[in-house]
């Protein structure tokens, strides 16, 4: 009992194991250039996965999250290409995303449409709006200083984008575990009826969940646009289902009520190590997807049975205690 590791710690050990394994067996994985390469690749996906996790804790899902990111990127890009400064552009980008998040939040929380339907609709809607604005073209040509957000080093060692990710990891952790809102998010995810009858305004809790997810999407969009010096309708679209996978691999319960920031981050690290390592080995891209899919299924099956096992144990122990 006392030596038992939590789901997240086991995942963390797996991540370390993969890292060590890749370092031993993949030439150049542990080279300084590849390590810094990975530090730059992590943040954009990590932020989206965190946003997705917060939504999944409430038992929902946000399928529009990458298009919110793209929309916010387009907003920032349009500001910059029209001669505004970096700061106003970032603020407009964030406001664009919050508007999208508010729209999702209103429909989910006030009208009560299931999140998967709402966000499926808004995914197509946002995509359409971006297409109408950009007519499918890329917007590029940002000031040089902007590119430092995604490409620059802080104090010459740590990528700035990684620091931004760290900041949001800590913030999300504090918000979820220490704030009233955070506790209500978990409560809502476990049992929304009970939460409502405990005097919680469910709609407000939900609204903030979608706003927070869109905020993380916006930050991710700023890092992506800065890193790639360009924004297009499908910016980061490959992260959509990956972020769901990372959240679930990180132990987040797809039905809501459970999910830890560190679990998701470990899952993001595992994805990163595997993808990068297999790429370095020269494996075919589809093989990378196969491996990640296989790991996902193995871990989920394992979690399912270990949950079942511990529940049985929990049912048995009170009798003994009694």
């Amino acid at each position, binding site marked *: 009992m006392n030596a038992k590791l939590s789901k997240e710690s086991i995942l963390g050990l797996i991540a370390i194991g993969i890292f060590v394994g890749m370092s031993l067996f993949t030439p*150049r994985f542990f*080279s*300084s*250039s*590849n390590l810094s*390469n990975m530090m*730059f*690749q992590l943040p*954009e996906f990590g932020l989206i996965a965190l946003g997705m996790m917060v939504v999944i804790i409430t038992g929902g899902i946000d399928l529009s999250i990458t298009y919110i990111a793209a929309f916010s990127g387009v907003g920032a890009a349009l500001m910059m290409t029209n001669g505004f400064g*970096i*700061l106003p552009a*970032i*603020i407009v980008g*964030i406001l664009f995303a919050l508007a999208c998040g508010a729209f999702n939040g209103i429909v989910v929380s006030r009208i009560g449409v299931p999140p998967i339907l709402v966000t499926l609709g808004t995914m197509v809607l946002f995509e359409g709006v971006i297409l109408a604005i950009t*007519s*499918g073209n*890329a917007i*590029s*040509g940002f000031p040089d*200083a902007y590119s*430092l*957000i995604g490409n*620059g080093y*802080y*104090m*010459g060692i740590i990528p*700035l984008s990684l*620091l*931004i990710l760290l*900041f949001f990891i800590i*913030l999300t952790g504090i*918000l979820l575990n220490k*704030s*009233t*809102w955070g506790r209500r998010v978990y409560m809502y995810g476990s049992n929304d009826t009970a939460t409502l009858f405990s005097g919680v305004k469910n709609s*407000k809790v939900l609204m*903030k969940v979608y*706003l927070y997810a869109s*905020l993380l999407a916006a*930050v991710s969009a700023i890092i*992506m646009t800065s*890193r*790639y*010096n*360009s924004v*297009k309708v*499908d*910016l*980061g*679209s*490959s*992260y959509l289902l990956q972020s769901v996978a990372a959240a679930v691999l990180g132990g987040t319960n797809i039905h809501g009520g459970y999910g830890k920031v560190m679990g998701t981050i470990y899952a993001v690290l595992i994805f990163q190590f595997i*993808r*990068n390592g297999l*790429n*370095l080995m*020269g494996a075919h*891209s*589809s093989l990378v*997807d196969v491996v990640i899919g296989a790991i996902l299924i193995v871990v989920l099956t394992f979690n399912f049975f270990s949950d079942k096992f511990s529940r049985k144990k929990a049912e048995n122990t009170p009798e003994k205690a009694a």
Partner: protein
Amino acid sequence: MKKLWLSMTVVFFGLILLAGCVSEESAGSGNSGSSDGETSGSSGEGESSSGESGSDDGNTDIAVVPKLVGIPYFNASETGAEQAGEDLGVNVEYTGPTEADAAAQVKVIEDLISQGMDTIAVAPNDPASVEPVLKKAKEQGINVMDWDTPADKELVDLSVKQVDDEEFGRHMAEKLVEAMGTEDGKIAILTGGLSAANLNLWIEAAKKEFNENYPNIEIVSEKIPTEEKQQVAYQKTLDLLKSYPDLDGVLAVSTPAPLGAAQAVQEQGVQDEVSVVGSALPTDSEPFLEDGSLDTAVLWNPKKLGYLTVALGKMLAEGEMPEDGQQIENVGEITVKDDGKTVIMGPPQDFTKENASDFDF
């Protein structure tokens, strides 16, 4: 509730603060950029030395990055690239994202840089988005080229183009006149999207050809966009056939457009009255070529394109540059444009009823 709003504002302030320090710090690192540059330079040296040791135990490593993997067009170029690797004795790494997402493609290129390649050839999904990563590759001493779709011209050492845009457009126009059997008729032009640069070049060239050599051809309307979708091209062609019952030909650029146009012609049973010519892959067009609803599909051979990319990548790695009129084995004679870096593979290839079944892309 107040607490929540407080935390939200904290988020905002934190973000703004962070954004504030971003620019300042980055300006700082910009000033000390020389030292940064040195460190990255030294790591670059380390990289290149390991690259040399890599070439000691093996041979030249050439990476070819398509827009995405797993579609017939890029599978065909993969076959070509790998065959070239075998023929020329170089290691070919053909890898790309599984979705046509610019972000995913950049990651693949970054990993290739870590892997220590001699040459990286990219078909960018979004030319602007690969700019920073190609710059990084160049800093590490890797030869950079583009193929299939041009990237930033300043950045690449070589740019491989399938066909000459002018020649391709003119060729399609000629083929259409040939299929119509008359130099005096009404035609319409379908395009993928109004802003697609390469499609516009082709259409301009085709129009020039009509103006100069077939002045009696009348183009009935402005070019019609089809959103790169076969279904839309089909709808628009049905509308065209209704509005212009005496239409003689349709010129459809972008790969789904000819298929949609041919589908409409096939359904209306006007194969003999309306000729359709456009740019399409042979396997897709085969069912339409068979009954004449599509007269000729014009494109290039992606297999050869993959082969040529690897062949040129090897030349780059060995410090050579291609010359105009040079003969490349299994590809043919190439043309090099005046800028010295744009290589054109050769004339367009026609796919007709007779030969379409010989190709597997």
